[in-house]
């Protein structure tokens, strides 16, 4: 009995060792974390990077832009995805931001409430809580109280919405529900007829994207510059990018990189 057990163990170890030889050729994968808006883009870029250069696929996580910054700063991630511009005094020193794309932010409502257009004043009144009922909003197809949705504090999209639509002084009403990510924001809007919120353009299918100041929130208008609500996507490193991170970032921002152009152009705005 003992001899059988011992030989079993030895053969198991041998099998493990044999199968591991090809796997040992792999190096260490990059760890990327950050914005939920950039998450779908970064996933595609990582897969394409692995396909074209055979480097190990970078691992992409998400947890909002603020988490991306603190992860990179503490060394827990190699690259951080940040969907807002750097804020002096709040962001740690020594971080280097590299722009990789631009993105549109749309105000979204439930498909049962196909609001055609909102001007800046109405958007501000709705989101600061001055206007509380859909009956006061021209063009609304539902009645009843307005259900406001915003994002959590560390979200880059939240920061972008604040800067683009509300400006410096106005604050979103505290009764608004805070959603963790673009995905949960979209879920919330789809699930509630009286809902209104905002999301990155890539997350608007399934909801009604509301025109802003008369310009529809579409990819074409964002690319042409007509639609005002556009913000930057950054890849952030601690200090200048080095090693595997530098290779990945330079692959992404290389001009005339057809693979990257195709991916970015599908739902975002290329920087070239």
């Amino acid at each position, binding site marked *: 009995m003992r001899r059988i057990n011992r030989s079993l163990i030895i053969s198991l170890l041998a099998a493990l060792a044999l199968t591991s030889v090809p*796997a040992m050729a792999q190096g260490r994968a990059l760890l990327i974390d950050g914005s939920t808006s950039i998450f779908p883009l970064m996933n595609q870029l990582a897969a394409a990077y692995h396909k074209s250069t055979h480097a190990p696929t970078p*691992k992409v996580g998400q947890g909002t832009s603020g988490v991306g910054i603190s992860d*990179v700063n503490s*060394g*827990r991630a*190699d690259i951080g995805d940040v969907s807002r511009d750097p804020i002096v005094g709040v962001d740690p020193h020594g971080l280097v931001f590299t722009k990789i794309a631009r993105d549109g932010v749309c105000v979204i409502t439930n498909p049962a409430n196909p609001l055609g257009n909102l001007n800046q004043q109405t958007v501000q009144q709705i989101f600061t809580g001055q206007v509380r009922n859909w009956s006061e909003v021209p063009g609304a197809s539902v009645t009843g109280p307005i259900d406001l949705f915003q994002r959590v504090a560390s979200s880059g999209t939240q920061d972008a919405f604040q800067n683009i639509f509300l400006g410096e002084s106005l604050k979103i009403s505290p009764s608004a529900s805070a959603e963790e990510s673009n995905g949960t924001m979209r879920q919330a809007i789809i699930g509630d007829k009286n809902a209104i919120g905002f999301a990155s353009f890539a997350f608007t299918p399934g909801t009604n994207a509301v025109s802003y100041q008369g310009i529809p929130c579409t990819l074409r208008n964002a690319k042409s510059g007509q639609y005002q609500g556009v913000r930057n996507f950054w890849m952030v490193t601690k200090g200048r990018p*080095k*090693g*595997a991170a530098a290779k990945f970032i330079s692959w992404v921002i290389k001009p005339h990189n057809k693979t990257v152009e195709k991916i970015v152009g599908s739902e975002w705005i290329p920087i070239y």
Partner: protein
Amino acid sequence: MAGAPPRLGSAPPTAFSPAPSPGVRGQKKRGQDSISSWPLADRVGYLLCWAAGLLLCALAAAIVLVMLVKGISYLRPGLLLEHPSASQSQSGSGGFLDPIEGTLLLTAIGIALAAPIGVAVAVWLSEYRRPAALARAVESGIEMIAGAPSVVLAFFGLLIFARPALAFLSQTSAGGAVYGRSFFAAGAMMSLLALPLVVGATREGLAQIPAHMREASYALGKTRATTIRRVLLPSIRPSIASGTTLGMGRIIGDTAIVVILLGASLHLEGAGGLAGLSTLRGTGSTLTSYVFENSPAGEGNAPEKAYAAAFVLLMMVLALNMVVTRLSSGKPRWMAGLTGPMLWRWMPWTR
């Protein structure tokens, strides 16, 4: 059991075996009083009891029916065999093969750690118990683990596995920080969930071995260690199996540890290096975290996938439960699987 306080009267009838004495426990005999002769308050109480019992059945039936209907309508065999699609939104094609693999792998790791340690601790508590104060402390410790919520265990796991000394159990980033989330980490914390159940079931089994078996073994000149190994443990194999299966059920059903300690990647992503070790050091997902992420609380925006995965999860758990019932059949106590290990904690004199 040696040392149990003397009982008043005869052995109590159990809830599931008909009472030997007529008239008191639900048997209709001649001379039995009928409900209509009772005062109003008592009749109301009687009706409320019936209502409560039926409500319980209705709740269970509702849960099973809902999951059955929704699960069967959304589940197709292909889902069990396809990898999840790589995108955020799971509502398109793609199944949940990786979450199923994750569940099985995590359960295997958890039980592989919990079973030997649990049996060892139970044997020590039952057979040796020296010094007595230490034994009581260990019992309290097991009790504390049993009562600790899985969120707290998951948090503690984050602390442990983010230490540089344990970096080999997960990945490290280029900056040197330890990721701390992997199958190893989640599996180790899962084993804590199953540990009290294994310990309780094993102790109960050991306590039910009649004294004459041990005495016969010692009379033949065997040492205590040999007695344990050759006589006691083999005879309580059903108890150990029952405890292990209960532990597996608990591990399969847990979400908090997976969500915090497994890295939340849809696919099983290895960490580079040896093939087997790479998966263990890498991240992944399980059925529970898959359901969580695809529900409105998470990202996936695919409630139909969530239902299908939840259905598979429920079937796994129910199958394990039936195994436990089979293994512990013949135990006189009601709901022996559920209450045995738990009551053990509260009633140490029942050992």
